[in-house]
């Protein structure tokens, strides 16, 4: 009751948590219309932003301020954009939890999954995951913090193109209309269209699952295969996404939308996509360790494949692309063999979900 009313008189600021490539892009877009304050964990990054207006080489709007104090950003902002990779998401949520209140609106832009295991267990000791042990980012936020008005941002939003000001669109998904409306108000511009969707789980899953297919698309490109193969992959990939998303609680509709098929097509054609690059380099003969060693930011798809593979152990479902990609990534199956396997796989029905 004390802290709630204090900041109403001040001009509202918008918070961005995490300042990787997508975080920086979104912060810049928000800064066109709003005062933006960003949170970075490392104090040298904070200093870099405040003094040189750039974060690890990416130019930021000079009006953007930075802090490494979660309390400060939570006090100053009612709306926060969480733009941190899934591997660090739970930790950040826990760090912010003591300072968040039920009035906060949180929109995240993370296309990955977290796991929720009994103390002392890891994915490598478990091998099998039930739905309840696997969390989308909105579920992480709701589990770790008191925030309930939560949304997600997903769609074909390659940071490089957005920062060049190319036209694009995104989806804001939330069970709360007010979150969608606020997201639209903050982000919409002549170059950026913002759609709303109430199926937040479906939209999150679309963004998550498409990364698996993106790695596979990169692999096909790396093998030097052409557009026919890509068309085949995208369409089979989408069917697989639909079934997986359904099994995890998302609706078919969202997969067919901008966050699903829209993002899938963009990522499967882009050398700017990290996930695509992983597949591409694998096909060129590098190992996963080599690839990960010199990637600046994580490719979410790798971890997603691992988690979905563990989920498939408990679900009554086959997902041939994911299963074979898992073997390529973690069990040294040759990509050519995986491709052979998929070509022989009896997908005899074209579309079986509508």
């Amino acid at each position, binding site marked *: *009751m004390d802290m*709630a*009313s204090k*900041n*109403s008189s001040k001009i*509202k600021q918008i918070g961005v948590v995490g300042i990787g490539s997508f975080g920086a892009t979104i912060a810049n877009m928000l800064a066109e219309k709003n005062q933006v304050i960003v949170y970075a964990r490392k104090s040298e990054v904070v200093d870099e932003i405040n003094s040189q207006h750039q974060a690890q080489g990416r130019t930021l709007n000079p009006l953007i301020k930075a802090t490494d104090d979660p309390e400060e950003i939570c006090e100053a902002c*009612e709306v926060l954009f969480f733009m941190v990779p899934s591997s660090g998401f739970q930790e950040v949520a826990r760090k912010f*939890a*003591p300072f968040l*209140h*039920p*009035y906060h*609106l949180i929109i995240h832009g993370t296309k990955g999954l977290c796991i929720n295991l009994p103390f002392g267990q890891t994915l490598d000791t478990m091998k099998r995951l039930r739905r309840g042990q696997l969390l989308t980012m909105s579920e992480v936020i709701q*589990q*770790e*913090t*008191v925030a*309930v*008005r939560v949304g997600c941002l997903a769609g074909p939003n390659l940071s490089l193109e957005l920062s060049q000001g190319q036209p694009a669109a995104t989806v804001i998904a939330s*069970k*709360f*209309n*007010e979150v969608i409306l606020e997201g639209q108000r903050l982000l919409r511009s002549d170059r950026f269209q913002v759609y709303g969707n109430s199926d937040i789980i479906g939209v999150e899953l679309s963004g998550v699952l498409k990364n698996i297919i993106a790695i596979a698309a990169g692999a096909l490109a790396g093998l030097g295969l052409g557009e026919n193969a890509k068309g085949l992959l995208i369409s089979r990939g989408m069917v697989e996404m639909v079934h997986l998303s359904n099994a995890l609680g998302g609706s078919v509709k969202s997969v067919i939308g901008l966050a699903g098929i829209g993002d899938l097509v963009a990522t499967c054609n882009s050398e700017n996509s990290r996930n695509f690059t992983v597949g591409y380099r694998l096909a060129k003969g590098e190992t996963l360790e080599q690839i990960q060693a010199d990637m600046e930011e994580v490719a979410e798809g790798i971890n997603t494949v691992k988690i979905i593979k563990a989920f498939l152990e408990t679900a009554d479902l086959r997902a041939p692309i994911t299963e074979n990609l898992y073997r390529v990534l973690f069990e040294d199956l040759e990509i050519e063999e995986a491709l052979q396997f998929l070509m022989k796989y009896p997908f005899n029905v074209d579309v079986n979900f509508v």
Partner: protein
Amino acid sequence: MEEKYIKHRYEPILPSKNEWPVVKLARERKEFIKQVSDKSQDRILNLINSNPDLLKEELETTLYREKLRIKQNPWAVDPDDEQEFWGKVKSSLLHVNSDTKLNKSTRLKAYRDILEKITTRYSEEIASNFKHQHYKFTRSVVTFGFARLLNAARVKGFRSIFSNQFTLQDKIQITGETDQLRDLATKGTVVMVPTHFSNLDSILIGWIISVLGLPPFIYGAGLNLFNISIFAYFMNALGAYKVDRRKKNLMYLETLKTYSKEAIQFGCHSLFFPGGTRSRSGMIESKLKLGLLSTAIEAQRNNFQDEQNDISGKIFIVPVTINYHFVLEAPSLIRDHLSITGQERYYKENDEFSTSYKISKFLFKFFTKGSDISVSVGRAMDVLGNYVDQDGKSLDKHGRIIDTRDYFMSNGKITVDQQREEEYTHMLGRRIVEEFHKINRVFSSHLVAFTAFELIQAKNQKLDLFDLIRLPEEEIVIPYEEFKSACQQVYDRILELRADHQIKIAPHMKRGMEQIIAHGLDNVGMYHAKRPLLRNQSGDIVTEDISLLYFYHNRLHGYGLEKLF
């Protein structure tokens, strides 16, 4: 650690009846009804955007449905002037419809006058008729009468009818967060949400509220119960308002919600059966009717809007589970459940608890033969499902104090957002279901019924539920040893869940498996003509009625115990 049952009667928290919110409400009944009627009209007009054409449509729909109800499904409790009232509504409507001189605003006004008549009538109909004298009388009848019966039955001999050896509280065990409930009821407004298996629940809860020293709660009771005059008397005495499930028109539903919301804001402690109706399947309610629940959230937001930010304006949700070995209505409930699965909408409200004879017979059996009931009171929560501390302050999962007001804030002030509150209602519903499962107390009878049905199902994997319950009962035999080891398995898993605070068990479950099974078989659905479970002459487990077995089995649905089979 043995849980302690509440054995003594508490001092009333508000000794003077004049302080009881429900008495105050009864004093101001007339003004209150007017207020409910006015606010309902506002809500309805708001819903239809004050559009005269839409209002006309709603009025006509309501009229049509009411006429149909009067014709097709009349009840004894219906007032005599129903035909006449709706006849008048019809002629007023025709009059306005044909009056060409009216412009948009005068037409709206004319329709609003009709609307007012309807909401006023509905408010009157719904409003409780609490009379303190009746309440006192009822309470003593229930306590005294039940206690006498009980003593007569348990202590042998004629004189025992005057014995005080056993009280009703030996029979009905109350456990859980009773002190917190008593405390919060003096400070804020309580909304109690119990599970609902039997029509007996209403009276039982009323009695428990009085044992705990709480002033009477108001609650919505199905109008069908008022068909029986003795029940009607009890219900009125206990502060019940009337919910007519035959009326599903917008105007009625909005008036009902307004009534509930206004009463909560008035400070009346309320009771909702959030399942809406008795659980027909015997499962703990997993989908709650959210209509009335939403009124608690709305009332809370209204209190905040009125700047009632301290505990006096706070609303506490208290889940309660009631456990029985035996549910009188089980045969008809499960029959309904099986026949209506999937098409509830076309299902006509019927009323099998209808004869006083059946009820007396049940009560007599209950008190003479003995069948324990346990009531467990859960931790109080705010309207978003956060636990509250001893001062009624909401706590987040990490125990930090948070302000419930913040859930309704945007841009630094309280805002009204229907869609948001709908979502909150869903969240609250899910939290209540979660709490139901946690405070649910497993009885021996639940364990044996669950295990037996799962074993039968496991042996007939190819059959779906409906084929399964059509199996000829005489062909079903479970060897005792097999049954015992399966019970042990389920029991062990229940203990694990209990260690994890996911469920509770009754004290009679803390014995050897042989004894638990014997106790369970003796008690499961003990007064049904056909017993759901018993041992045959060779000592094996058989059933006389597999649908009933299914009903009692369902009580342990929702814990993932099925996976053991």
